[in-house]
């Protein structure tokens, strides 16, 4: 697998807090759009289609039979 699943985020608590605070004051629809924008930005940064496919597969795991 090309996808890196080892911990890499420098300041996990700081990052998580930033992620949560980013949604402050947004409606649910706005939050969804914000998440989509973030995913598209990150996906473009990654670029590698094999990695992106891995990400999509794992993200969907709990919802697949």
């Amino acid at each position, binding site marked *: 697998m090309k996808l*890196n*699943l*080892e*911990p*890499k*985020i420098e300041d*996990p*608590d700081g*990052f*998580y*807090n930033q*992620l*949560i605070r980013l*949604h402050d004051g*947004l409606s*649910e629809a706005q*939050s969804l759009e914000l998440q989509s924008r973030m995913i598209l930005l990150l996906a473009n940064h990654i670029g590698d289609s094999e990695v992106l496919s891995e990400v999509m597969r*794992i993200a969907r795991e*709990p919802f697949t039979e």
Partner: protein
Amino acid sequence: MPYEYPKFEYRRNADQDAKVPVRHPVVIAGAGPVGLALAVDLALKQVPVILLEAQDTISVGSRAICFAKRTLEVCERLGLGRRLLEKGVTWKKGVVFFGDDEVFEFDLLPEEGHQFPAFINLQQYYLELYAIERAQELREFIDLRWCSELQAIDSGENGVRLTVGTPDGAYQLDCDWLIAADGARSFCRKSLGLEFEGRTFDDQFLIADIKTKADMPPVRRFWFAPTFTDADSALLHMQPDDVWRLDFQIGPEADAAEEMQIENVMRRVRGMLGNEIEPDLEWISVYRFQSRCIRNFVHGRVIFTGDAAHQVSPFGARGANSGIQDAENLAWKLQLVLKELAPESLLDSYNAERTYAAEENIRHSTQSTDFIAPKGVISLAYRNAVLSLAKQYKFARPLINSGRLSTPTIHRESMLNTADVDSWSGKLMPGAPAADAPLQSPEGESWLLSQLKGEFTLLYFTEDAVPELVEAELRSLSKNLVPVKPLLIGLKPESQGVSVFDLQGLAALRYDARNGTTYLLRPDQHICARWKTFSLDEIRSALNTATCN
């Protein structure tokens, strides 16, 4: 049988019969963990203390139960550490569950070579009881007055006049410094009209301390979204005397009185521990919490410590543990100011360092709360995504936050530090508390921190004999107005003229020490300066910086 609380007798004191109010150097309001730790610390520095306590007994209910390594190290210096360790339940591992699934396990102190473990669990009343007994041993310096309630504070430029209520009526006394250690509902804080800034959380938590013989390891267990009870989270912790702390997050709308009904508590207890369990209920309580502090901890001659100054959520055990750090930070500064060996501005560093620490603790405990009790759909979705990924995928585990457990604050930016000029490896830095390490002394095995007795100390590491010039300069430092006590550590068995040896090499590793490495430590064991080579001028200059001289 539930714990029996001792009663302490009110005694009349000479101040009550004085025609004019008697003046004392230090009065501490509140004989909780923080007030007691400060009183003992000051007494060991031969500063007389009046300790006022409104009640006639110790903390009712176990309340704070997790005492961190740093607290034990501070208490060891105060003469309490081993006793706490012997009575307490030592633990360092935690397990986190999501629903019924175990998500991951953590170890808070994965390395060996420390006198004290990452944590012990111990009911707050034991810590208070042992500290009271220690205070009684130091009665030459500590006057502990029970049933003595602060009723008025008149704060002047050079001192404070207090009115103290007793069963015999009120009396007045004066002090140079009043230390507010009177807890979350601090009378001192209200009396000075100081406002807390921060957040109040709506969620309610139910505590049940139960007594039962149970064959379970001393591991902190935390459930997100448990299935065995109707609660958003649950926590299980072992305490001494076969007591277990159960904590359930019951939501903002729960009816506290209803939840505290014995049959309702028992339903939750049995959900967690099994239907066959027949425990004694020791203590039941429902609480909400705040994350907040006052902006300044020093107001003229009134100094705030512990919960009187700052409050945090219980996740992370950052309340009592940070309060004890307030006490150790303040004790030596107050002593030097009272002895006129340092200017009053030294107390500004107490304010700067401990407000910084309070902000750090509030940040950590608020972030834990945001994870444990997420507000809104998006926060909950992120939280559950982290937990569901974490079981299988390691990358998500550092994001799980079931409480970031108390570690001592590093005063990186402190005005008392002298910045490094040499380059260093390892985790230590100016502002950090000194690291422990096993040492060998002529009397046998010892610990580095046990060698530090509440004075400025100079660690000097050497491979061979201590040079004569260094010896002479160390002698002059030990006779300084603010004495600096040398601790000479031999890096090799053949080192000469040293008091202790680092035969396992762990001190050398943790301090990045070679021949001639020198560390200047504050009386509270925090590093204020360090050098790769010994220089008397540098040491004197760093000592002046560390004492605002």
